[in-house]
């Protein structure tokens, strides 16, 4: 099992059907990209859960800080005028 320990971790994304985004479903270990796709097929689409699979090495993902209260997202917090509900209009204006 020594070989297995060296296999990189891949994150797996599956497109449920045409027209939908690929969605993260889990992870697996594989010796290379191609075998990761095959393993993902066997593990995550045993019941027609997908029509397309992406795998990406976990080490290649760059992510924001995990904390949802991170100041990174603060700039959008106070811009309520970006939402349609910010604007009061007469109720009898059609199609708005």
């Amino acid at each position, binding site marked *: 099992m020594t070989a297995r320990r060296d296999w990189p*971790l891949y994150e797996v994304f599956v497109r449920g059907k045409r027209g939908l985004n690929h969605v993260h479903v*889990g992870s697996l270990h594989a*010796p290379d990209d*191609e075998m990761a796709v095959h393993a993902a097929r066997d593990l995550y689409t*045993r*019941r027609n859960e997908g029509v397309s699979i992406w795998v990406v090495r976990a080490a290649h993902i760059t992510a924001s800080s995990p904390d949802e209260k991170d100041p990174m997202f603060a700039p959008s917090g106070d811009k309520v005028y970006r939402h349609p509900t910010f604007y009061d209009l007469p109720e009898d204006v059609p199609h708005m």
Partner: protein
Amino acid sequence: MTAPTAPPAVPDETAVPDQTAVLDETALQQHFDATIAAGHRVEPRDWMPEGYRKTLVRQIAQHAHSEIIGMQPEGDWLLAAPSLRRKAVLLAKVQDEAGHGMYLYSAAETLGVDRADLTDKLIEGRQKYSSIFNYPTLSYADVGVIGWLVDGAAICNQVPLCRSSYGPYARAMIRICKEESFHQRQGYELLLTMMGGTDAQRAMVQDAVDRWWWPSLMMFGPPDTDSPNSAQSMAWGIKRHSNDELRQRFVDMSVPQAQALGVTLPDPDLSWDADAGHWRFGPVDWDELKRVISGGGPCNAERIARRRAARDGNAWVTEAASAYAAKHAAEHAGEHA
């Protein structure tokens, strides 16, 4: 910046412990407590108390091991299935158990452990798996009863875990629960078919029910009065119901199913409590549970020996795959040279 499944950053041990660090720890704990109290999910790189992480690793690993070891009792019947249809169904079910184990090892790895290490711990007896898989499958009726009762009990346990406070665990449970329904229904259908057969077939079903009923009740773990970890796990939202609550729910679900099937559950004390709206059941043999968990069940040694043989005997496959990947990577590099 690290990948989403990388272990959360641990405090730098070389840093001088000052008042700020202590305050930070308190603030982190308060933030964690508020997340749990609000019913929000904890995600892999969030700060979490060490006890929470350890409890999750223990529970998820034990759960993953149970799925993997759980392939064995039914796998024993793959080459002796009574028809091609039953064989295809059983093969699909055993494959699902492997898949469930993989989903769970994947969730455990988000907590900073390595799945190969977890397997080693299982084989060395340092981590446990469900006591139920230490009983033998003596006839094909056992395949049906495992689907009905053992997977039924697993569903009772697992549906609330879809709301577990740890995100990756809850998401793995959602996938698993979707697939468990097939497991339970194929088992019950198998039993219905046998009950519609000969007297000998009906006797096989009853015999299997007699042997699996009490071990199924033990799957929910020791009684609440003797379950030291339960209170903390519930406070953390890792568990949502106590062992005894889930056991009662399982009995209430199973009695009418047994009646519809036409089998007798092996408990003379089983009676309907109209006031409470529950089926009351007799005393569970907790000594048996302790004995089986601590290695004294009929099949403990066999199950672990087989898992060890699979790890060691299949090592050449992973080595071959690594060699193949290395060769193709070298060829690919050559093309671009």
